């Protein structure tokens, strides 16, 4: 027995042109364009040909990027939106945690709102009276239940909305990214409540960006992309495929961003101060800016030695912009020196998004004495384990004389992102190990939301 069944369901939103938006009854009547104006200029398919079913008692997690049609899908299941084509069938009472407290009236008290909201969601007055204390306790609002809702904080408002919706005792629960309504404790309480629903054989449709939750909590996952179903099946597999896809697109974005930064680097003459250009615009000058470490992205130097290309190569041997914490990373440099030189230092600097220098070194500091460079050359800087915490990092790459005179200085022109399954904090993950005496016990817990 399926609790939710969608067959070839599509939802096409109509996007009206500007003309339609400002059209009024008067103009519609005057120009006799009433019919024409009401026909859409453009249509936008938010959900296309979606077919799936959720058996009773199962939990389905829907993941996907912003604008992939997840929320529209949920609205279709909730019955708030009607499918343009295809069919949607739901067996049993639905409660949709879509907009919490949508029906609250700000002027009246929490108590009265609980009743009205409950009736709106399909409870009878008697049912609400019976569950009232439970609802208030769940929302942790015992002291404020007689205060008008307009005086509630947004968290209190959401908690009360959540508490009412979850006490409707639905057969099918629809959840749209609402776990962010409270503190840790409240989130855990919500998860416990979901688990209880699961135990009691209720069907849950969960739309979320919290992939860990989907892996841990759902029997099946559905990945929506551009309004279509991309992949459905085992949560671990679907989430894995989704993460890979997100990384790929991040990779493209970073590559495009780097290319843009390098292309738009403007050349300014040496006698013009670097500050004359826009402060956040990449600059390209022959001399170093006076305060080098305050400078934003840019490139400067005499180009007697030129850095012709920089590639970040990950574990799989291909150049990329997204790496996993703990993976190896190699920076490939291509250099060109038209005339032979014997005074040069190759340096590298690693900065995080806040501009903190995480690490910096150069060949001079590491006691490598330069002897000669001529023609095309290559250099590799290999990092055995990229033990950085998750975040975006930028690289400085430079070739300069031992006294600092720059040949070619690339300031923050290379961006890469580090992904991590562990949400540890700081900058650098120290290689470490935990050890416990036998009186402490842990069980391995997967990450939660």
């Amino acid at each position, binding site marked *: 027995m399926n609790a939710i069944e969608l067959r070839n369901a599509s939802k096409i*939103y*109509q996007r009206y042109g500007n003309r339609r938006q400002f059209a*009024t*009854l*008067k103009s*519609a009547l005057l120009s006799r364009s009433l019919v024409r104006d*009401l026909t859409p200029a453009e249509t936008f398919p938010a959900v296309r040909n979606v077919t799936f079913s959720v058996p009773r008692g199962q939990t389905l997690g829907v993941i996907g990027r912003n604008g992939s049609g997840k929320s529209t899908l949920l609205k279709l299941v*909730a*019955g*708030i*939106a*009607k499918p343009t084509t295809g069919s949607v069938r739901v067996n049993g009472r*639905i409660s*949709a945690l*879509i*907009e919490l407290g*949508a*029906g609250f*009236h700000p*002027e*009246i008290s929490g108590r*009265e709102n609980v*009743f*009205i909201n409950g*009736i*709106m*969601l399909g409870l*009878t*007055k008697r049912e609400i009276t019976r569950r009232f204390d439970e609802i208030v306790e769940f929302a942790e609002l015992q002291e404020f239940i007689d205060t*008008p809702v307009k005086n509630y904080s947004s968290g209190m408002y959401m908690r009360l909305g959540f508490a009412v919706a979850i006490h409707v005792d639905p057969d099918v629960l629809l959840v749209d990214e609402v776990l962010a309504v409270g503190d840790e404790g409240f989130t855990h309480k919500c998860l416990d409540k979901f688990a209880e629903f699961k135990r009691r054989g209720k069907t849950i449709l969960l739309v979320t960006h919290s992939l860990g939750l989907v892996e841990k909590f759902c029997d099946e996952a559905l990945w929506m992309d551009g309004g279509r179903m991309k992949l459905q099946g085992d949560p671990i597999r679907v989430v894995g495929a989704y993460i890979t896809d997100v990384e790929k697109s991040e990779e493209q974005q970073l590559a495009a961003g780097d290319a843009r930064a390098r292309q738009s680097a403007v050349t300014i003459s040496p006698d013009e101060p670097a500050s004359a250009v826009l402060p956040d615009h990449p600059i390209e000058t022959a001399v170093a800016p006076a305060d080098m470490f305050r400078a934003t992205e840019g490139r400067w130097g005499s180009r007697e030695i030129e850095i012709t290309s920089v590639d970040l190569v990950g574990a799989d041997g291909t150049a990329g912009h997204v790496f996993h914490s703990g993976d190896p990373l190699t920076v490939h440099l291509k250099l060109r020196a038209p005339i032979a030189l014997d005074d040069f230092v190759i340096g590298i600097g690693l900065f995080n998004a806040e501009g903190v220098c995480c690490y910096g070194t150069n060949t001079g500091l590491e006691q490598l004495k330069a002897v000669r460079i001529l023609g095309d050359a290559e250099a590799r800087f290999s990092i055995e384990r990229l033990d950085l915490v998750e975040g975006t990092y930028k690289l400085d790459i430079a070739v300069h004389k031992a006294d600092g005179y720059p040949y070619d200085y690339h300031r923050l022109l290379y961006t890469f992102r580090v992904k991590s399954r562990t949400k540890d904090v700081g900058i650098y993950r120290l290689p470490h190990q935990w050890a416990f005496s036998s009186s402490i016990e842990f069980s391995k817990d997967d990450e939660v939301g």
Partner: protein
Amino acid sequence: MFRNLAALVRYRGLIQSLVGRELKARYRGSVLGFFWSFINPLLLLLVYSFVFSYVMPAAKDERVTPFALFMFCGILPWTWFSSSLIESSGVLISGGNLIKKVLFPAEILPIVTVLSNMVHFFFGLTVLAGFLIYYQRPLSLTELAIFPVAVLIQLILTLGFALLLSALTVHFRDLRDILANLLTFWFFATPIIYPYFLFEDSNNPGDEAWQAHLLKLNPFTHLTITYQEILFFVGPVGHLRWLLLLGAISIAFFLFGYFIFDRLRDTFAEEV
């Protein structure tokens, strides 16, 4: 359409509590609170008494003295009608959150608007009753029996307008601005601040001026005359035939309004 209409019965609990919420919320935060429902019509009556007794005394026609009381009988139902229409024209837009996020039959919103205004009308009636007693104008049993019929017909007519307007305003927001002016015109086109027999030749009853024929096209004329005959004038209710005709028209109009509303229903969630 009729299935949706029948399904509304299931929502009577919700309609009831929403009307209660409207009434509670309206005066929340004011010092006098609920008493405003009584004070408002009372103040209105005072203003009209003052204007028509001192500022511009109306032509002395002993049939409509006291003139303020005469007007009050027409203004109370008119206020119910006009504020229902004005409020319901915006009710789907301001209640957009409910329509978009909660599974909720949208027609409940205009219905609640009309009903909560009806409750205010009833509060006003108690004030009117006080004055009727003060001026010693008793109601006959027949009149008492016809009164609820008139109220019911007005309710059906108002609901029809409210449904139609609320649905159309979602697509044409400028209806709200047109409506305010239209209602002002409508007010003066209804025999509320003048007696309907102004256009009758008093020597030759039945011979009516052209204005009287026009007035008869206005559905609210018949409601107003009925209320005035019941509450103000002594003697039998002579307008009953017209009232029953209006009743039939109101039912047809309500069905028409509901039909339009039902047809446009699916567009609300996208347009509000």
